[in-house]
């Protein structure tokens, strides 16, 4: 297996490493006893690198993302984002984030939703407007800038959420199944747009997904996880250049199919039955 160096990883202004997870363990205390969602996970994400987390339901991939975002704290282990603690990184607005639900504020227009993180962090009105206009164009919603979220389709709402996530030009983008609730066609179109946006912003991305083709299409590396307890089973390098990814023809490429097969085998390796909750299409 040839491993290509991911493009843009060199000479990144924020240094070589975006996320450094060391021995992260998260145990939830519930009424039904304790659940180990993550067990001693180590993961390094380089600056400008696109890493997907994939695995069956309950493998802790969303938990891992929430730990990196400092929306949750590990029971043991450490998490560093650009060399500082996850909390410092959060308070320094080091990352942009998107969830499975678009989570737009229904009383704000598309433009006002995209401006929200900028407004909360003190960007001036004119600069805010200019940035929002650029992002609205980037996600192809120019005609809908003054619409309210409930006037948009699910796919359009998710585009607004992505524009909001990259509004502050973060060096790290955290995405928790952002396309999980969308139909297949919208999903593939938004994947293409995400590749384009990432090429422009040069952000590192940690992307949680259920879908093998989605993970392969987007990622430099795919982290395959297993459940109970949540651990990393294997890390699959995807040898596709970003240039190739901006081409829709890639989805029919032999190298692409080979990578899909490698991830699928990694997912099923050692488990007698197909992993539940993973889309195998």
């Amino acid at each position: 297996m040839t491993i290509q160096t991911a493009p843009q990883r060199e000479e990144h202004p924020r240094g070589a490493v975006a996320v450094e997870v060391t021995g992260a363990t998260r145990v939830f205390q519930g009424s039904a006893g304790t659940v180990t969602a993550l067990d001693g996970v180590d993961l390094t994400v380089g600056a400008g690198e696109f890493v997907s987390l994939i695995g069956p339901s309950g493998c802790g991939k969303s938990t891992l993302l929430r730990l990196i975002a400092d929306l949750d704290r590990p029971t043991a282990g450490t998490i560093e984002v650009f060399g500082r603690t996850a909390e410092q990184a959060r308070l320094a607005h080091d990352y942009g984030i998107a969830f499975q639900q678009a989570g737009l504020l229904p009383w704000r227009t598309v433009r006002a939703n995209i401006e929200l993180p900028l407004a909360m962090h003190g960007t001036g009105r004119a600069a805010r407007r200019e940035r929002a206009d650029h992002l609205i164009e980037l996600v192809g919603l120019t005609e809908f800038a003054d619409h309210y979220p409930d006037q948009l389709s699910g796919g359009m709402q998710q585009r607004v959420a992505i524009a909001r996530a990259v509004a502050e030009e973060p060096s790290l983008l955290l995405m928790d199944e952002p396309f999980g609730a969308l139909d297949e066609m919208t999903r593939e179109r938004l994947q293409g747009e995400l590749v384009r946006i990432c090429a422009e912003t040069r952000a590192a991305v940690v992307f949680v997904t259920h879908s093998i083709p989605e993970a392969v299409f987007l990622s430099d590396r795919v982290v395959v996880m297993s459940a109970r307890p949540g651990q990393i089973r294997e890390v699959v390098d995807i040898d596709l250049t970003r240039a190739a990814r901006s081409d829709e023809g890639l989805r029919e490429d032999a190298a692409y199919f080979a990578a899909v097969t490698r991830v699928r085998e990694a997912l099923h390796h050692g488990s007698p039955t197909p992993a539940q909750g993973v889309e195998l299409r």
Partner: protein
Amino acid sequence: MTAARTATARALPPVLLLVVLLATWQTVVVVGQIPAFLLPSPSAIGSELVALWPTISSAILVTGGNSLLGLLLGALIGVVVAVVAGLLPSADRMLQPFVAGLAVVPIVALAPVLYTMYGAASEVARVIVAAIAAFVPVFVTTTRGLRQVRPVHRDLMRAYGATPRQATVTVTVPTALPFVFTGLRLASSLAVISAIVAEYFGGPRTGIGSFITTAAAGSNYARAWAFVVGGILVGLAFYGVTLAAEHLVRRRSGPRAG
């Protein structure tokens, strides 16, 4: 033009129904020769309404003023107490049974006691009764509204490193606002009813309720009904204004799909 026509078209059927009902009422009273103490005719009530309009209108202002003051006072306290309960779980546990108790107490029964406390010439007792009546629904709906913040919005605020104040202004208040206004609409009718009924138990003879009791005691049934119409006008005005405010807020706020 078209909007005006649609509004007219929608208003026409209920207005027609009202006319038919009044005409039937009038016919029944005249043809059946029903005595006035049982049921005065609409025309008799109408002529009393016209003849006594100066008195009725001033009574409307007095009762409306008491209701408005009580409503604002009760709503303000309701919102403040709900916010405190939202911030402090211990205060919430303390308040819940207290408010439930307050909701079932017949508040107007307090009126005679309050008249003794504040003097028979004062309107204060009526304002207090209206305020207590308005407090309960505003407190209940605001408490509910403050709990409606979606988890994804809470995560978002944390991810942005928002201060508690920023999170409150950006997410909590806009989410709760439609609930507050629903409470205000429910409270407005209660405040008017309570202010009128409180007048039945004494105090200065200035408001709608006082005049209804006086007219009924003097066997002036058509006059009593004319003051009832005045009370209906106060209630409708309060309901209409708060309903419009609620619609205005709900249009661009609150939890919706997406």
